[in-house]
């Protein structure tokens, strides 16, 4: 048996480290299972869209087919969009619980639709997920503390330190060997179940390797902290207390303080103000000459300006035009709102450089496409799709083309990848 095998045997006989390693592995597996279950529920919900949707659209088509009115088709048709979970989403569910991953939109004003949420239980969201990111960021450091707080001090307290250090392969090399072995086992307890889960979920090799490295780096930070604390040659119990206090600060207290600081220093005008302004802008159209609305619309969209002038009757092209005018009138606020959200996320990234707990969490959600940026990208896709929808319906409305049952098959479909 070589030295490593001896250390392994020694570790195997110790109750606390083995219990800790077993528990960490169990928690990792549980978190992965819960994450995969959640993600597959989300996939099921997304794959159930077409069935529900076709039922809904068929009813609309039945009604529209009698009038052939493209405006009514645009008004009554809801078009689904969705944000499929990335292969890695199971590991870090991020914001997918509080932000919708399915949203239906109409060709009307988008700013009144895009901030809608989906149904979720806020108490469960408040608690947070038990996903792999949680096990790594919150729990793994506690296991590092359990396994590393007494590597040297424990031997000192047992009266073996001198004798071990007097042996040719004892001393620093021995502590390093023991630390490395424990680190490898902790890493394995986290990474091996993850690799299996990632394999099942079809994650490609690159991200798997990256997360394996992230796990190692995050563990190494805590191991380094434990090594630093042990240099003060305090008792095992003092080491454990100091490390647990550091954990409390780094994982629990400082992120909440940073959140308060970020929200105070990076003000974001409430989204509600956009909604209020948008609604005023849209409804104002009923009180101003319809020609004003159309002039403004044509100025921005000359491609439709050749359309016939409005008659005395209600025409949906006017209705949709003032909805689009409404969207365009709040564009600066929308832009500022989004920029505010992005700078809050950027500020959190900066905090992540200083706080490894925050950094690891943000890296994981970033890789898993479950962070705020991913939500904003989904909104971008919705916007692009909405634009296609408008163009599609405008083609009928501004040219006064009939919209029959067959035309429902021509409606643009959301492409979740672009």
């Amino acid at each position, binding site marked *: 048996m070589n030295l490593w095998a001896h250390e392994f045997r020694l570790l195997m006989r110790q109750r606390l480290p083995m219990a800790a390693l077993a528990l960490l592995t169990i928690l990792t597996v549980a978190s992965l299972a*819960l994450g995969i*279950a*959640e993600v597959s*529920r989300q996939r099921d919900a997304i794959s159930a*869209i077409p069935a*529900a*949707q076709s039922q*809904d659209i068929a009813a609309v088509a039945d*009604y529209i087919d009698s009038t052939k009115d493209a405006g009514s088709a645009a008004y009554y048709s809801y078009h*689904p969009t969705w944000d499929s979970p990335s292969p890695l989403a199971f590991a870090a569910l991020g*914001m997918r619980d*509080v932000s*919708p991953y*399915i949203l*239906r939109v109409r060709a009307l004003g988008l700013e009144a639709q895009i*901030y*809608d*949420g*989906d*149904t979720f*239980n*806020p*108490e*469960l969201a*408040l*608690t*947070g*997920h*038990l996903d792999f990111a949680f096990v790594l960021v*919150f729990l793994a450091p*506690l296991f590092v503390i359990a396994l590393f707080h*007494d590597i040297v001090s424990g031997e000192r307290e047992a009266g073996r330190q001198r004798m071990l250090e007097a042996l040719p392969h004892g001393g620093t090399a021995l502590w390093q060997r023991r630390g490395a072995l424990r680190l490898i086992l902790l890493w394995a307890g986290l990474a091996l179940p993850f690799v299996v889960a990632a394999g099942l979920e079809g994650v490609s090799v690159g991200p798997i390797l990256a997360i394996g490295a992230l796990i190692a780096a995050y563990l190494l930070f805590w191991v380094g902290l434990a090594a630093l604390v042990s240099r003060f040659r305090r008792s095992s*119990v003092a080491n*454990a*207390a100091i490390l647990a*206090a550091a954990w*409390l600060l780094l994982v*629990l207290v400082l*992120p*909440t*303080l940073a*959140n*308060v600081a*970020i*929200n105070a220093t990076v003000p974001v005008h409430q*989204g*509600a*103000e956009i909604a*209020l302004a948008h*609604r005023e802008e849209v*409804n104002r159209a*009923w009180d101003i000459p319809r020609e004003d609305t159309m002039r403004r619309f044509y100025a921005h969209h000359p491609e439709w300006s050749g359309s016939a002038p409005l008659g*005395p009757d209600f025409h949906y092209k006017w209705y949709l035009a003032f909805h689009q005018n409404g969207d365009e009138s709040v564009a600066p606020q929308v832009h500022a709102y989004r920029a505010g959200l992005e700078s*809050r996320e950027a500020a*959190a990234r900066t*905090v992540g450089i200083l706080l490894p707990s*925050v950094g690891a*969490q943000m890296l994981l959600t970033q890789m898993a496409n479950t962070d*705020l940026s991913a*939500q904003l990208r989904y909104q971008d896709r919705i916007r692009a799709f909405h634009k296609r929808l408008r163009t599609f319906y405008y083609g009928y409305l501004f040219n006064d083309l009939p919209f029959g049952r067959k035309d429902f098959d021509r409606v643009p479909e959301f492409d979740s990848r672009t």
Partner: protein
Amino acid sequence: MSVVTLVARDELRMMVRNRVAMIGLALLMLLTLTAVLSAWMYQRGVSELRARHAHAAESTFDAQPDRHPHRMVHYGSFIFRPLGPLAAFDPGVDAFTGSSMFLEGHRQNTANFGDVRQSSPLIRFGQLTPAFILQAVAPLLLVFLGYGSLARETERGTLRMLILQGVARGKIVTGKLLALGLVALIAGMPAMIGLAAIAVRQDTPALPVLTIAAGYAAYLALWAVLIVLISAWVRRSRDALLVLVAIWAVSTILLPRAAAGLADAEIPLANRLQTDVAIGRDLRAIGDSHNPDDPHFAAFKRSVLDRYGVSRIEDLPINYKGVVALEGERLTSSLFDHYAAKSFAAQARQNAMVDLAGLLSPAIALRAMSMAAAGTDLDGHRRFLEQAEAYRYALVQRLNSMQAQDVSYLDDMATDPGADRRKRVSAANWQEIPDFRFAAPDGATLTAAALPSLIMVLAWLAVALAMLALVTRKLGLRR
């Protein structure tokens, strides 16, 4: 001086000499004060902002010109959920639910713009509030201060010496408990001062404040007992520390998430798309108001004509379009209520499952108690949504009635150039419509909701005390 006070004084002296522990305690108090202030300012800021938005929305509604009532049905109303005063102590789910809602006819919109989607992503690490400090941070500090209280004495053999000198075991344990209890009191003090500052505000109900104070006092007392219990149980202080940190991590960090994760997996919620499609399907099953041959609406038309003893809708003394709008809104609204109730029932079942986990973790029970008493739990949000829906329905039906009463059917159907003018009703009508006022639950309601969880926390305390009594009897006997 009695033995108990002697032991307590000795233990306190030990803690005071522990510089790291004292710094920790001071930091905790500082942190709590920061939390009290920040939560207070947040509650103030949010309340004012929402009140301002609500006021702005109300004035624009009142300032609408003469309109066709149905235009106002679509103009709708923007309402904002007010934040109760106790949210400054425990904001609960406030940040995780939308705080503003657009109310309009035929549709039930979601509450939007929750802080969780507008705040920095760090919000998922937790919010710095007095409740968070007392639930999560304070117990761990007590662990650091108290893990060695008896284990240290066992380890060094001083405990045996005390017992051999005839000091009753119960008195030693009581003394240690007293000392740690005192520290718990000090640790909880800043948060309680913050609570008191909230309590003196006029709009704060007294009973929930007392419930919250009692609940947190019991919770911290529970931790003090638990710490002394474990310290008495194990032989080495290191083991006491590790066991206590493990208990803390499992009960306050792991179990809440595990319970939430299981509840989420076990009890699925219908998503909005499925609900909307289902409501559409149910509506079609009842009847299609667009279809002249639809049996439901044909029968409805028959009944209206019969009621007024006429044979044509043009002969009705009221506007038939308004009557149909009233009927349509009644139908959709009943379906909204039905599906919302279903969704809330599922969420309540999820929460009940989490509450059950309070049997395994006192932190879960305490959190439920705290949010329920502060009115910031799911029920609080549900109250808002239900009142919002009731208001929406009343508003829309009032406008529909206006259409039925004040706009003639012939005008409503006319398309001549002057018709638009004739269809409108006076702007004075909008000002007469009452604004949305959230009816906050009274103190008794909140307290009643918090009571089951409070009892669970107290039961935990009782069990821990009983176990401590058992362990005390065997103190010093184990090797």
